[in-house]
């Protein structure tokens, strides 16, 4: 399907309002119908505009999301499979047909045939009950699997960091009197990945989260938030470091902040450690 040159030009004018979401529903539908015709000019124009406008978000101050988001994400995808591109989808639907049923002449059947049918039905009923019970436990098993996958992910990331050519470390000590809390931060200066290990931190109160901070040039930057799961005394959390140059790192601290974290420390410091 070809489009006249003048018409293409007119549609090109709609690319900017389309990208900025300013077309009314009618015009948007019309423009999308035009795109579906495969107009190369508009495709190139849109692609360029998307690239350009995407740069605007690079101007925002970058901030790592709380670590729980990644765990929830991994939990959400654990039961999903990526869709395959159309060209690679196996053509298997036609294979699903049932075998044709041949008409029977209903010969006389002995009594034991009926008895075996009854026993068979009873077995199926018993099987259904068993499967139902099994399904009940599968839900909690799925949750457990999702948690284990998250933990495995963390361990894999930890191992990945430890394999780095150079790893730096700072110990964190408790600043709360009478507690046995401690921790350490390891980081790969080349990739700016960090690994936080903590021990004996109590589970955070409702509506709160622990937050790791990096101190550099007398300023504190959020590295990310993490949770203490009740019943576990140790945590291992991988986080990207939010600083450009790791040579100026002066220390780390952990505070208790409102859920989701704060832009600057507001809560009580729990752990702290610095370079001498």
């Amino acid at each position: 399907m070809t489009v006249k040159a003048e018409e293409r030009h007119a549609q090109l004018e709609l690319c900017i309002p389309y990208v900025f979401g300013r077309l009314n529903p009618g015009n948007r539908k019309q423009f999308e119908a035009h795109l579906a015709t495969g107009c190369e000019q508009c495709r190139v124009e849109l692609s360029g505009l998307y690239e350009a406008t995407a740069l605007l978000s690079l101007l925002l101050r970058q901030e790592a999301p709380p670590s729980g988001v990644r765990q929830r994400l991994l939990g959400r995808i654990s039961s999903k499979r990526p869709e395959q591109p159309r060209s690679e989808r196996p053509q298997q639907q036609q294979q699903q047909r049932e075998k044709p049923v041949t008409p029977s002449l209903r010969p006389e059947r002995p009594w034991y045939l009926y008895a075996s049918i009854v026993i068979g039905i009873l077995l199926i009923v018993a099987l259904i009950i068993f499967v139902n019970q099994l399904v009940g436990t599968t839900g909690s098993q799925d949750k457990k699997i999702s948690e284990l996958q998250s933990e495995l992910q963390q361990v894999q990331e930890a191992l990945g960091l430890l394999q780095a050519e150079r790893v730096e470390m700072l110990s964190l000590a408790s600043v709360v009197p009478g507690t046995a809390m401690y921790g350490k931060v390891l980081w790969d200066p080349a990739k700016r990945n960090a690994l936080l290990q903590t021990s004996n931190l109590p589970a955070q109160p409702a509506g709160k989260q622990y937050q790791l901070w990096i101190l550099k040039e007398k300023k504190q930057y959020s590295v990310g938030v993490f949770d203490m799961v009740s019943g576990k005394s140790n945590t291992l959390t991988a986080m990207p470091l939010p600083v450009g140059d790791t040579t100026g790192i002066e220390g780390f601290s952990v505070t208790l902040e409102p859920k989701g974290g704060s832009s600057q420390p507001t809560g009580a410091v729990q752990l702290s450690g610095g370079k001498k």
Partner: protein
Amino acid sequence: MQQSATNQRQQYDREDAELLKRIQRADQRALSSLYDRYAPVLYPFGVRMTGSREVAEDLLQDVFVHVWEKAGSYGQHNGSVYAWLTCICRARAMERIRSTNQKRRGNEGGGGMSRGSSESEQNIAAAETIMTLKGITEEVRNSLKSLSKLELRLLELSYYEGQSQSDLARMLRIPLGTIKAKMRRGIQKLRQVAAPEAK
């Protein structure tokens, strides 16, 4: 200098495309790598658009669940993977903003999403503390010098808050023609940064 930034961006594009191929094969580590690379950009983007950290967290998950499910639908015609992700994130954010606005209109009869003045200027300085996408971020920051304050402000209001040009003209008391010209010029400048080799 510009050449090295462009090379760096091309390197990112190649790595991203490889990650997407692995995601199509259900490789969770590839999704994690893509997440590590872009979540620190997309998360504040979501916060900026919706004004809520909690909503931005959900938004971020939605974006990467979409990537997980639809990685196969990504093609070179979508532009770079980063542009594709931003596009998904913005579309999802706009859906939420529209539904929030509809609810709000139902309750109090209208209201925008305006959240004060331009944040870019103060954030430009803060951006230098970030390493992810550092080369590209610096390149963008430098390009800002060619954008006037008004051009940048108009782009932000339009991009993040979905303000129409006539709304902007009314709000800022600037003739509509000037708004259109400034925005077009701002976009043109951004495009030169996005594809310097094109000009």
